[in-house]
């Protein structure tokens, strides 16, 4: 085992994992799953024409519209506006996610690290956390001018809670032996924080960030439906009021894809920063 992994670069490790993945049954089951889902959609809308699905666009209509050079309802991959919507939404996510991480991770670290700080802050935090971002919409609009800041604020909120909470749990999950070992070895309180608390909480922090980027999309779309002139949430909402049904589906599918890409990016950064963990897991965790 040792000889096998000692000289692996991270690229080789990544390739190794991809080849393992291709050898397993997982990718093929995944394809069958997608085919089943699309098949059901196609059959129920376009073949059987089930009553509940009568207003719904079928997959062929959506695909034709999505890839059309001259889309009936105005939005396809050949229309620059489509990318404008994606970019505006992604930009809002990036800003909100960045702010939530920059504030949430340090806050969570200190919540977990200092019992006293936690006693001050955590009760307030726990009281605010159950309030859904949608309930913040009126206050957000009153507090912030324009249409951009309220949407970013709403997106930030949900992300922030997930990040701060998971970071705190991460610090609390650290085995006290590691802290004691560092004390024995002569580390100061600040060195313990830097070399034990932060890396020890890292797995939980990245779990938190993945949840955080997911819920960011969640509240972003809610925010864009209420206020804003661009963005995928706005596309879905206006297409509904303007009866452009295929465009709704295009907006939804695009959200799914872009959301998945952002989650995967967070996971990749996590794997890169936590080589030790990736390697432990790559060995199958048999020890």
């Amino acid at each position, binding site marked *: *085992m*040792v000889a096998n*992994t*000692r000289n692996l670069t991270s690229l080789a490790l990544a390739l190794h994992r991809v080849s393992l993945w291709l050898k397993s049954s997982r990718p093929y089951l995944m394809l069958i799953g997608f085919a089943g889902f699309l098949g059901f959609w196609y059959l129920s809308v376009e073949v059987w024409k089930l009553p509940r699905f009568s207003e719904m666009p079928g997959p062929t209509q959506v695909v034709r519209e999505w890839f059309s050079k001259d889309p009936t309802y105005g939005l396809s991959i050949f229309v620059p506006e489509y990318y404008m919507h994606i970019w505006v939404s992604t930009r809002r996510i990036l800003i909100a996610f960045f702010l939530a991480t920059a504030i949430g991770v340090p806050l969570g670290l200190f919540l977990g690290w200092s019992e006293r700080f936690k006693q001050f802050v955590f009760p307030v935090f726990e009281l605010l956390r159950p309030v859904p971002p949608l309930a913040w919409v009126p206050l957000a609009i009153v507090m912030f001018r324009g249409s951009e800041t309220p949407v970013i604020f709403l997106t930030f909120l949900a992300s922030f809670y997930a990040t701060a909470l998971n970071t705190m749990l991460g610090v609390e999950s650290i*085995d006290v*032996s*590691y802290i*004691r*070992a*560092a*004390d*024995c*070895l*002569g*580390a*100061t309180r600040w*060195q313990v924080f830097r*070399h*034990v608390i932060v*890396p*020890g909480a*890292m797995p939980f922090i990245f779990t938190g960030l993945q949840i955080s980027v997911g819920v960011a999309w969640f509240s972003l779309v809610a925010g864009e439906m209420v206020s804003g002139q661009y963005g995928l949430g706005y596309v879905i909402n206006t297409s509904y009021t303007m009866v452009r049904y295929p465009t709704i589906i295009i907006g939804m599918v695009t959200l799914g894809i872009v959301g998945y890409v952002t989650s995967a990016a967070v996971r990749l950064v996590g794997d890169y920063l*936590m*080589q*030790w*963990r990736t*390697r*432990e897991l790559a*060995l199958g965790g048999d*020890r």
Partner: protein
Amino acid sequence: MSVLPAAVQSFSPGAEPVRKGRIRINDVVKIYGADDTGILAVDHCTFEVPPGEITVVVGPSGCGKTTLLNAIAGFHSISSGSIYLDDQMLCGPGKLKAQPGPDRIVVFQNGALFPWKTNIENVTFGPIMQGAMSSAEAYDKARDMMADAGLRDVEHNYPGEISSGVRRRVEIVRALMNNPKILLLDEPYRALDSLTKSVMHEALLEIFYKNRVSIFFITHDLEEAIFLGHRVVIMTTRPCRPKKILDIDIPHPRDYSVLTAKRFREFMDETVAAVHEEAIKAFAAGEKER
């Protein structure tokens, strides 16, 4: 220590013949909770850990021997009494909790190598944190010591990539990097199977013969205690107090042939009844608590 370059040796007070690392435990009492209603874990405990020797403390699980180790290491306070390391009071009247430090390093029951640092980063952690060595010096010394302990091949692995037996060895080297006066080992081989354990015992003795650091070793395994120890302290079950202190006169260096030697069996015969008696008491107490 002869492998160290001269520049590094000047940092190592352990290079001269060791007559340091004597622990004296005087009348130590530890009560968890309030003085009158709390649980008495350690009851007027007095004994000595001679310098440059291995002292093994044996007692049933939960008897309070780890409490004693935590008091020496500075993780917990004591209620009364005092503990000295050579002439320095670690804890005692007016200062009930010792300050943890690199002169007494603990090797933990479940291991505490930092999984996010490579083995060599773990080994260099102490001197770099203390500012006792430059990074380059620390890495030079770490490479020498790891090579000496047969760990050259795993320098750049993470602890999660090597077997638990090898991890223990890395952890001991990490401790020795700081020239501690005493190593405190808290049942370090508890989770290992008996074959791995026998290998680890010989490896520990080998490290000990090279470094001659005092060792305070906690276990519930009598055979392990007599095999390793110059001195074996058998503890009563909770509250813990020395029941029997034996000086094991089987000559060092020892290897596994000792296990079948007549003298070894005599020590076993002499002590097994005492340990068994405490185990029964501990078991009965456990039943009552339920």
